[in-house]
């Protein structure tokens, strides 16, 4: 039905869609988890904060699981190289995620304040650590990672965990955290009333400029401080996947990539514009509209990354010729088509019932409502 080249492009787009869906949904869950110990001043307030996301966070996290599954299915070499190469970082993300299911479900099942306070800090870790580490990861993806393959296509990684923590990547970690806090504060404002609503608004005032400033700094750094290898020869966009078959020459900058295709500048424009408008509208009027703007802004920033990296999925800093592109790291045409049809069938179904669940559970959560329903709610 589709040729191999088209399927590879489709899956590059779908992978982007899954990354965006994960960031938009789990993003505010992470942010609210990280804000929890600070915005909730007493137990009932904290329970109100938790219950703004309590019924839906689990479905949101499946986007991360699906992202892992999609990489495995569609870009198996990316999955293999990234997860084994960044072994310690991936495990730290995983360990941080451990705090979430138990944190949500177990916290309010006992009354002891020490127990509840401990889980609140657990939810804080589960909310703050993944965005920081995933931000650091993105920072390193932009710069390239030191990996290569042997002739069996076995991946080797020659960097270390602490090598990931370079200044640019740490800046990206800060951006990741601020992005989730910002997005989370808007969502919290949307779903609360009274004191919590006001505190979320006050946080927004500060988080907006902080996010925009760090993001601008990171963007300038990418534009002027990083580069991509230039593909010299490769077997073709519909050839069998083997990353060792291409050659690369000297690097070109991200600005060259955007300058060659000026329409790409729309992505960072939507990114910054969306976040700026989100900040303004959240303060001045409609929080719902602010959430839409914030979602647009985050999508624009992620698209900028995707456009800038195209056609690369994973750049090797030590062996640029071994970098993985969408043309030489994909699954077979058969599997790409299969995964395409599965996605086309199930994506609308998933979106439909997810929307329904949000609709049913919608409404502001207040400490009074928590008190009335204290034996059922988280």
């Amino acid at each position, binding site marked *: 039905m589709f040729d191999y080249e088209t399927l590879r492009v489709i899956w590059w787009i779908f992978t982007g869609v899954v990354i965006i869906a994960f960031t938009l949904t789990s993003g505010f869950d992470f942010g609210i988890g990280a804000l929890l110990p600070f915005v909730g001043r007493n137990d009932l307030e904290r329970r109100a904060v938790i219950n703004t996301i*309590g*019924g839906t966070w*689990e*479905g949101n996290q*499946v986007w*991360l*699981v*699906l992202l*892992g*599954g999609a*990489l*495995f*299915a*569609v870009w*198996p*070499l990316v*999955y*293999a*190289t990234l*997860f*084994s190469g960044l*072994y310690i970082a*991936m*495990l730290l993300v*995983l*360990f941080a*995620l*451990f705090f*979430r*299911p*138990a944190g*949500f*479900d*177990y916290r309010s099942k*006992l009354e002891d304040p020490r127990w509840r306070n401990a889980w609140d800090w657990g939810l804080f870790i589960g909310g703050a650590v993944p965005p920081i580490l995933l931000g650091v990861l993105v920072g390193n993806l932009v710069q390239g990672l030191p990996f290569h393959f042997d002739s*069996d*296509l*076995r*991946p*080797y*990684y020659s960097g270390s965990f602490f090598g990931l923590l370079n200044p640019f990547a740490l800046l990206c970690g800060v951006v990741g955290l601020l992005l989730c806090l910002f997005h989370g504060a808007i969502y919290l404002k949307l779903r609360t009333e009274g004191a919590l609503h006001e505190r979320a608004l006050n946080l927004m005032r500060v988080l907006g400029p902080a996010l925009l400033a760090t993001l601008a700094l990171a963007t300038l750094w990418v534009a002027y401080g990083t580069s991509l290898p230039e593909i010299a020869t490769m077997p073709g966009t519909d050839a*069998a996947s*083997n990353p060792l078959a291409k050659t690369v020459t000297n690097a070109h900058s991200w600005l060259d990539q955007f300058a060659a295709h000026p329409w790409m500048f729309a992505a960072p424009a939507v990114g910054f514009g969306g976040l700026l408008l989100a900040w303004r509208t959240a303060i001045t009027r409609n929080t719902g509209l602010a959430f839409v703007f914030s979602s647009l802004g985050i999508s624009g920033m992620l698209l900028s990354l995707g456009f800038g990296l195209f056609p690369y999925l994973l750049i090797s800093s030590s062996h640029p010729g071994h970098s993985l592109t969408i043309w030489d790291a994909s*699954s*077979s045409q*058969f*599997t790409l088509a*299969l*995964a395409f049809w*599965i996605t086309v069938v*199930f*994506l609308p179904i998933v979106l439909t*019932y*997810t929307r329904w*669940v949000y609709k*049913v*559970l919608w409404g502001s959560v207040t400490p009074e409502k928590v008190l009335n329903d204290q*034996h*059922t*709610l988280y």
Partner: protein
Amino acid sequence: MIIGDEIVSLSRLQFGLTAMYHFLFVPLTLGMSFILAIMESVYVMTGKPVYKDMTKFWGKLFGINFAMGVTTGITLEFQFGTNWAYYSHYVGDIFGPILASEGWMAFFLESTLVGLFFFGWDRLSKVQHLAVTWAVAFGTSFSALWILIANGWMQHPVGSAFNYETLRMEMQSFADVFFNPVAQVKFVHTVAAGYVTGSMFVLGISAWYLLQRRDLGFARRSFSVAAGFGLASVLSVIVLGDESGYTSGETQRIKLAAIEAEWETHEPPASFTVIGFPDQDAEKTHLALKIPYALGLIATRSIDEPVLGIKDLREDSTRRIRNGMIAYGELAKLRAGDKSEATRARFDQHKVDLGYGLLLKKYTEEPANASEEMIRKAAADTIPRVAPMFWVFRLMVAAGFTMLFVFAMSFYFCATRVADQKRWLLRLAVWCIPLPWIASEAGWFVAEYGRQPWTISGVLPTSMSVSSISTEQLWFSIGGFLFFYTALLVIEMYLMIKYIRLGPSSLHTGRYHFETKAAAPAL
């Protein structure tokens, strides 16, 4: 390159630990979700509030368990990439889409709707909420379906072939992968085992309330539901999940021979060894007690097909290793650029045994030139240790039949309405609560340990599947898992026992034991 034994052993240890730990929670989720759906269906049909209370109370215990299932499930998805990178590259084309389908069809369904199960009681109509509960139940079983198709493919890799240009296995037929006979048998067996686990849990705890003589109406009804569902499920496990899945494919046949300690191929129909003492060095079983014809009937469903013995299977492995050496040699030529008709034809002729050639990678960089000694060692590697397989399998079967007895008795006495007077049975039901877990873990041990030395039977050896990581990294992760998993298990058990002791009083309806007594409850 030749991968260090320590990396392989530690990677296997970590996978075994985390997978078996995950499977403490999975079967209970599988079973409880259906029991909740059954209880709520009765509530919707009869309108009796006690069935709503049952759904809500057992739902609380379900929730405590579900959280752990989610926590430990993500580990496995990360782990294929972190620890089994070469495996991920080599079979991602087949294994990946199956896992992604599980995400689309199962994880989203159960994870998105489970929130509505807990918080949707006052926001949905009765029928809507019931639909949500059923959807969660089907979601959990869909999840089992896909992961067992994935595992079934590892045991018996059909519908795929090696591609010398991409140096990996690629899918040829999704239908073959989906309708893999090994996968279908495993799916039915495993979900039914999950239903048994949920039933035993509810049966045992209800029996304990009955022994304590509290919340009798609630406990009696819960006991009946568990007895009925449990009996149907345990019969399914035993009848549908027997050894019939062990006749397709080389590794499955070796597994069967190891389980039965069948060293020699005998004239059909083979007899079944009930008990005995397998001796790996002497290659015989001491003091074997045998039932004539039974194994032939169970395994081949016939009286004239032989069940192959270990010695013959090892001979077969040797033959395939020699084939694999040819395939590996031709592959080397292809990779070096010789893509002539003759080389391709010779490779295609032998490539089905390429995996057997890779077994030699443990001993040499150049499998095509392996010595006789190496071939002998690699062939010996294809036979697992017989004693653990033999004994652990029998442990599983013993647990299964004990549960069959408990469920059958419980069902009979429920039907005759005297179950709560049979105190011996109630006590037995309490003591049997651990049995489904023992049986499940034993079953997985047999399936996975028995597949060694392969991750993908006949295709990819375990020793090649691991990531190129260091022992320090592995110790870091194993240490982390031990720490978090131990802490979480203690916390989970504490909460579970606390809520079991509280019983339906934890719902705060004012109708149950601790609330109808004068003293206010602690919680």
